[in-house]
């Protein structure tokens, strides 16, 4: 599917995308995981992860992504992200109230610190990345069906 020469853009764009797409994905994951230490966070990192897939779709044609992630799978994963966020909030009931940060705070400037904040960042990043990817997939699939009519 990826080596189909007719779909997508030219050979130069495909080669550069092949080199750079993993780095974009890695940068998005870095932004998410270091959300409580450096600028960024769940929303921005999730958008970068979604943009890496959009980049892949623009360069190689839409089948490169739609064959792996269908619209329904993206929608289900987005709901899982929302439920993760709510359940992390509900963990606070063990300490007394909703959204209470009851996990260990840890030492500042370390990756494993700040209690529930990194977990919340993970949940929001899953929700945002897969949700925006689902919107883009829906728009792309709609464009395909319109041409058939």
């Amino acid at each position, binding site marked *: 599917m990826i080596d189909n020469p007719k779909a997508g853009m030219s050979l130069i764009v495909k080669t550069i995308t092949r080199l750079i797409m993993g780095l974009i994905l890695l940068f998005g994951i870095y932004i998410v995981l270091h959300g409580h230490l450096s600028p960024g966070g769940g929303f921005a990192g999730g958008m970068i992860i979604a943009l890496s897939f959009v980049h892949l779709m623009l360069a190689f044609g839409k089948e490169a992504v739609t064959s792996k992630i269908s619209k329904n799978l993206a929608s289900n994963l987005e709901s899982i992200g929302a439920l993760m966020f709510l359940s992390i909030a509900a963990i606070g009931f063990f300490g007394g109230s909703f959204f209470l940060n009851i996990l260990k705070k840890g030492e500042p400037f370390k990756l494993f610190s700040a209690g529930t*904040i990194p977990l919340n960042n993970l949940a929001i990043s899953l929700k945002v990345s897969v949700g925006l990817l689902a919107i883009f997939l829906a728009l792309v699939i709609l464009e395909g069906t319109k041409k058939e009519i």
Partner: protein
Amino acid sequence: MELHILLLFMIFAAIVAIEVKDLLSSVVAVGAVGFALCVAFLILKAPDLAITQLVVEILCLIILIRATINKDLPLVIEGRWIFNTVSTMVFIAAFLFFAYHALKELPAFGEPIMHLVKKYLEEGTTSTGAVNLVAAVILDFRAYDTLGEATVLFASVVGIMTVLRGRGRKRIEEKEK
């Protein structure tokens, strides 16, 4: 100083986006406004907002360019331009009048109105353990706001999936045939 140059550039690009005839050029001008806003956030020392603005702007530009690149939509200019111009001028004058009186009451830049902010700035790192104070505020002190934001995003995704679904439309077409 840099901020004023950026703001003038943004106003200029916004006027270009409205006035230019070609639709694709208009989208490019809108993108220029967004990226200038990103640099303005960087100058105002808000890197979190700058990253988010940059990424959202790129995704919006991709969707807008994909939507407009093959369509040559003609720009419709009808009559009544005297009424349109006069009403626009009246609204701009009213906005400037009220904005002048409202902005005079604001405190100076960098001095927050609410006293709660000082508590967040002093105790943020010790009470949550997060070094990034923005993350400490949006995911610990003000997590209810983030929950509302997540709900808005969820509702928008559900709405788009419902409007753009393929199955229901095909069944209706088969019934018509």
